[in-house]
């Protein structure tokens, strides 16, 4: 089947304007470099207002930096991900691939002015971000030539698996389902026991539920401005 009249060849210039993605194998990464020192300037001018001076803010988003150790840089596994008492997870605790940071900052940051950074600025600020976490030295100059070495120091680079059943198709994983249940119909479980519920003081925390249900219906909304009935 052909489709005469539909579509036309993309020009090289057009592809260059839009094909900005950078893959884990660095395909798509433009040549260039930027220093962590320059990155600090950019960070403080264009990023810190939202992410905090040390990337620690959770004012507009969860912290970018924190929770990784020198040991993690060696092992490639962020140990605190296994610490259930550690609150929250920072970006650097999770991200396995430095390309992801580069690509995302390049396409989407600063949040209110995406795609406004030069290639040098993206290298620089990425380097600075990593330097805050001790992944690269404070005077590091990151470039297309040495980015693979940075990758080899990413704290959570070994922290991912694709060995599961939730990827469609055969290109990854392909494991059978991990969770098993059976559709028992009669006398299935023990006496049910309520283990978790909202405390009464949180009753109105999502607003008055009477105003979040239709005026008529099989059930109406509970007036949560009043004590439970």
């Amino acid at each position, binding site marked *: 089947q052909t489709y005469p009249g539909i579509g036309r060849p993309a020009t090289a210039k*057009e592809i260059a304007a839009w094909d900005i*993605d950078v893959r884990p194998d660095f395909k798509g990464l433009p040549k260039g470099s930027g220093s962590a020192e320059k990155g600090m300037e950019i960070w403080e001018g264009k990023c810190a207002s939202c992410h905090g001076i040390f990337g620690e803010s959770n004012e507009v988003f969860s912290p970018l930096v924190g929770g990784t150790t020198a040991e993690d840089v060696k092992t490639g596994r962020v140990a605190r991900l296994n610490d259930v008492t550690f609150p929250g997870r920072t970006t650097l605790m999770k991200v396995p691939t430095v390309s992801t940071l580069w690509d995302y900052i390049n396409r989407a940051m600063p949040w209110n002015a995406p795609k406004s950074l030069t290639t040098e600025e993206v290298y620089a600020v990425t380097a600075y971000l990593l330097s805050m976490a001790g992944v690269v030295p404070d005077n590091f100059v990151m470039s297309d030539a040495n980015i693979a070495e940075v990758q080899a120091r990413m704290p959570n680079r070994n922290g*991912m698996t694709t060995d599961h059943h*939730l990827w469609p198709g055969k290109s990854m994983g392909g494991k059978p389902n991990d969770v098993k249940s059976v559709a028992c119909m009669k006398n299935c479980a023990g006496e049910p026991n309520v283990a978790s519920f909202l405390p009464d003081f949180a009753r109105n925390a999502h607003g008055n*539920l009477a105003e979040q249900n239709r005026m008529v219906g099989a059930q109406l*909304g509970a007036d949560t401005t009043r004590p439970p009935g």
Partner: protein
Amino acid sequence: AAGAAGGAALAQSNPVPTEGGDPNILNLPAHTTGLGQPVVTDGYGKPSQYEANVQRRQSPGLTQTAQASVSFAPLQSLFGIVTPSGLHFERHHQGWWDVDPSKHRLMVNGSDEKMVKSPKVFTMDEIMRLPSVSRFHFIECGANSGMEWGNVAVPTVQYTHGMISCSEFTGVPLKIILDLCGVDTKRGRYILAEGADGSSMTRTIPMEMVEDGSVLVAYGQNGEMLRPENGYPLRLVVPGVQGVSWVKYLRRIEVGDKPYAAKDEAVHYIDLMPGGLHRQYTSIQECKSVVTTPSGGQVLLDKGFFNISGLAWSGRGKIKRVDVSVDGGRNWRTARLETPVLDRSLTRFNIDWVWDGKPALIQSRATDESGYVQPTYGELRKVRGTRSIYHNHSIQTWLVQESGEVKNVQLS
């Protein structure tokens, strides 16, 4: 905010009248004795003023900004399987836009020069000339019910399950567009989809889903164009896969030989397992269901007959069966499924129930055509722990208290 007519619900009784009859019957209302409004009062109509409580809502404190945030669909007030487009859940990472469709373009290219024989650019006019299909599919955020992984966190089904919607999508199978450009599908086993908004959202999608015809480049939603909040004028439809892959404001498709590890597949939408390892590229939304009526935050005003109603879905195909328990999972009855029961679509179920006024624990449990049975929290957490955020598809429990008030609870 609710309008004048949309305030708190008033308990409506239907008592046997003492004085001969209900004044709502005996005194004819104005609408029975007068002349109403003309046609085309609204060229594009709106819901009744009395429906002002039926709104999508943010969950207080869930996100720190409203442009990288989510609004939840009011499942407690919805019927059937079609989500009204005005109530479709929203998830933006860098805000939404109303994009001029006459200036919007779709580009197809390859990760290297050999991958796509003829990279191409399409206008909306051209895309809309290509063979089109229309299909009902659910879209669910991978983080739907995520707040409840550890314990009960929110009061109503709007917040527990409201990051799901279902629409009839119309568009062009991506396969047709790729065929038109000439793709090396031997090497090119992945697709990168990219949006035109500030986030220029990117996600990796397996070529198998393109080849089997299920991935659509869609412009239509429930009979009209996509809504701006949902990607007008073009979004990818990736049936059964989490919503973040359904790239909005779609501007580019790249065919590649490797996955892309985009921010939302290497930092988010990754599932933290016990032991600290994350699962990456967890795309499929598993078999799941929830009772929407009665549900948390509602009040049963009476004993007696009720219709228990809810929704079931699976990213792996059709729903085969839904069972309902009113005793916290000890005993189950099989619900009626409303037709049509469609592939990777919502399915509405209903079942009779007579409430005796005693506490009841209402649950639903779906089984899909792959045979997979929706698990309990116990079964799910045993394997995946409590910190995953994503892919919580556990059985939901609603406690009906003696007062008639319904609470969100989790059982041990």
